[in-house]
């Protein structure tokens, strides 16, 4: 009898079955679209295998310029975000300044507003402010600077959160131990606090780098539509182009962006060391 029960248990694994909805979701919304993109990227308008889309993407010098600019914008935004978010997260994680966590919510508050409206508001503010110094709209004269300002503003909370989480978990004893062993406050920072927060830094980098690579609405708004990033071109091919191969070229471009993000993730992961990924902020 017990054998029969065992058999039945083996056949129906309730816990395992809980994965089914997730699996279906993944298949429908992640794997299937990816396969679709792959199919489009390597076929021509007649559905025949072809590298023509890739030739089209890479033969255009304008595309190269846009890809390069996108990468630079994303990289600079990420670095600036980390530089700003790190001290903020440090203060927030310190009970002395943030005993009731209200400050955390204040820093996240801008996320409650629709980000297009937020960006338009920021644009007006930035232009008003820089008019005093350069006598013209920043968005028109230095579009790249304006885009980076917009990106940093919009994605800063995504950098603060993982860093804040990581810093809450910091072992305060290790900080004291470092001071006890003769490290001055600067050495304590570089030798214990930074190593302890590397998983948070990696998470924060990913959380800002990935969306800045792909989002083009902020770029449009902050540069008065004058500057293109990779998202704009993809949008052009999928949205506006009437060419019969529009979806095919767009797919190839999407894959280019995917690869840039993928390679960056791999580099970041290898930088953060082996076990750190386990402890990472939100990954």
């Amino acid at each position, binding site marked *: 009898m017990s054998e029969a029960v065992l058999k039945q248990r083996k056949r129906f694994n309730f816990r395992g079955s809980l994965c089914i909805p997730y699996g279906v979701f993944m298949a429908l919304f992640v794997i299937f679209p990816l396969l679709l993109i792959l199919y489009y990227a390597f076929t021509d308008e007649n559905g025949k295998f072809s590298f023509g889309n890739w030739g089209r993407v890479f033969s255009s010098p304008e595309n190269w310029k846009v890809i390069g600019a996108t990468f630079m914008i994303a990289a600079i935004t990420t670095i600036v975000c980390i530089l700003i978010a790190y001290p903020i997260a440090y203060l927030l994680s310190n009970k002395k300044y943030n005993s009731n966590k209200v400050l955390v919510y204040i820093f996240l508050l801008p996320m409650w507003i629709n980000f297009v409206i937020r960006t338009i508001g920021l644009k007006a503010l930035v232009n008003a402010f820089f008019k005093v110094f350069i006598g013209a709209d920043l968005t028109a004269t230095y579009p790249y600077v304006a885009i980076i300002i917009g990106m940093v503003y919009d994605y800063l909370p995504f950098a603060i959160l993982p860093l804040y989480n990581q810093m809450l978990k910091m*072992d305060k*004893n*290790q900080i*004291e*131990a*470092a*001071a*006890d*062993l*003769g*490290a*001055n406050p600067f*050495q*304590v920072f570089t*030798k*214990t606090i930074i*190593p*302890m927060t*590397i998983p948070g830094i990696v998470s924060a980098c990913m959380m800002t780098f990935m969306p800045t690579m792909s989002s083009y609405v902020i770029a449009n708004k902050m540069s008065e539509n004058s500057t293109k990033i990779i998202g704009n071109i993809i949008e052009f091919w999928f949205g506006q182009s009437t060419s019969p191969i529009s979806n095919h070229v767009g797919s190839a471009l999407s894959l280019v962006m995917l690869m840039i993000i993928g390679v960056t993730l791999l580099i970041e992961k290898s930088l953060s*060391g082996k*076990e750190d990924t386990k402890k990472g902020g939100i990954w």
Partner: protein
Amino acid sequence: MAKEKTPVNEVVEENPYIIELIDVCKKFPDSDSYAVENFNLKIKKGEFVTFLGPSGCGKTTTLRMIAGFELPTSGIINLNGQDISLLPPYKRPINTVFQRYALFAHLNIYNNIAFGLKLKKIPYEVTDKNGNTVTKYRHLTKAEISEKVKNALKVVDLEGFEKRDISTLSGGQQQRIAIARAIVNEPEILLLDEPLGALDLKMRKEMQLELKEMHKKIGITFIYVTHDQEEALTMSDTIVVMNDGEIQQVGKPKEIYDEPNNAFVADFIGESNIYTGTMAKDNKVRFLNKYWDADPVDFGKFPVNEKVDVVVRPEDIILTKPGAGTVDGVISSKIFKGMHYEYIILVGKAEVVVQSTAELDEGATVGLKVDPINIQIMKKPFVSNFYDGYISRNYDVEFAGSEFDLDILPLFPGAKYNDEETLVDENGQEIDVENLEINVEVPFEAITISDDPNASDIHGNIISLIYIGDHYEIMVRTEDDEDFILTTPDLWNENDTVSVIIDLEKVHLSRKGAKK
């Protein structure tokens, strides 16, 4: 900056004390009471000193002030005669072994131990162009560091572990690495904050002996914090018993054990029978309803009829035939403890714990005898609670955060209430007593406690509990940090929340000073 030994060291060599704490007080900003109060202690070079006390007694706070992680609210900490109380930790030639090891998880063992060495700068002398000798500072070389790390690993018995990762070590090994990391810097003082707390019993015993051995070998001053009295007795040259932020007694382990200063120390160190006694004539002290011969040394210290605490260690009581001892009792329980039997003997209602190798049956009547020098007589800290009170508008008395309907007439000789219920003096003049400060004395026996929350308006937690022969002495602390000490025959638990009931008949009021 690396830690540098203060060059003054050599000059004040005649000062035998490496560290002196003078009137050190510490109060945390979010608390009303002192965590450490009036702490005075001098520690000699090379001594093994242990701070011993229950949790929350201020021992770790004191250690952290010596390390520099906390700054004293007031008072001075002298290291070799120089005040270091405000110096940041990294400038003090003192290293700490932390309770939870605090090893750097991102570094391997070698780099953990070398952490302090890599930061250190040592002086060296060079002759410059003009022929003068100039002192310069340099980092240690790789070879020097590697040599020192190797030696430190040898001291803690973990040779060849350099390349291993911290996460591959057991708790005991991590603790050894933490010790190696501290001693490799050759600190003047090594602070150990309950370093063996997380280890199992066998490991702990081993490490105790090893630490003691290590102390002998490297010869630096150890300051050790523990709540384990056995650990303190085993390892230390000097024990500092602390309670409630204050030093209770400082002495050698044997002194502390044999001659405890007060009932708290006696109760905390080892097993004790503690009774309330009364000094009598002719070198005698009365407790357990009998007159006992007392140690003449103690006798001179107390006037006749003074209430005292009497401590007798279980192993100092000699069992005799009934009638042959000072008092007779009935064995109520018997436990075999390996080396001896532990008996609980009832003398009247009082319990006496006795350790003896003789085998006797439960229910048997035995006589009890104690050598006079083994009867420790000590001053009772107090028998009453004292509070600062004041008189409220409607002639009630306020103290300990509550208002009590106490008769204040006796405070004002000749005074009485007139028809309008106003207090007047003999001439009919109104006496302004509002907010007049008075002393309130509440004897221990005036207080009872109840677990019924509606029994009174005063609620508190039991923070300490000492068994004194036939009753317990209990301290209750309210949310406003007011303490009530009381005696009760009933057993309560620490941290119980209780209502405090005060028998107002027994409360004594007196006026402050001679103010008119």
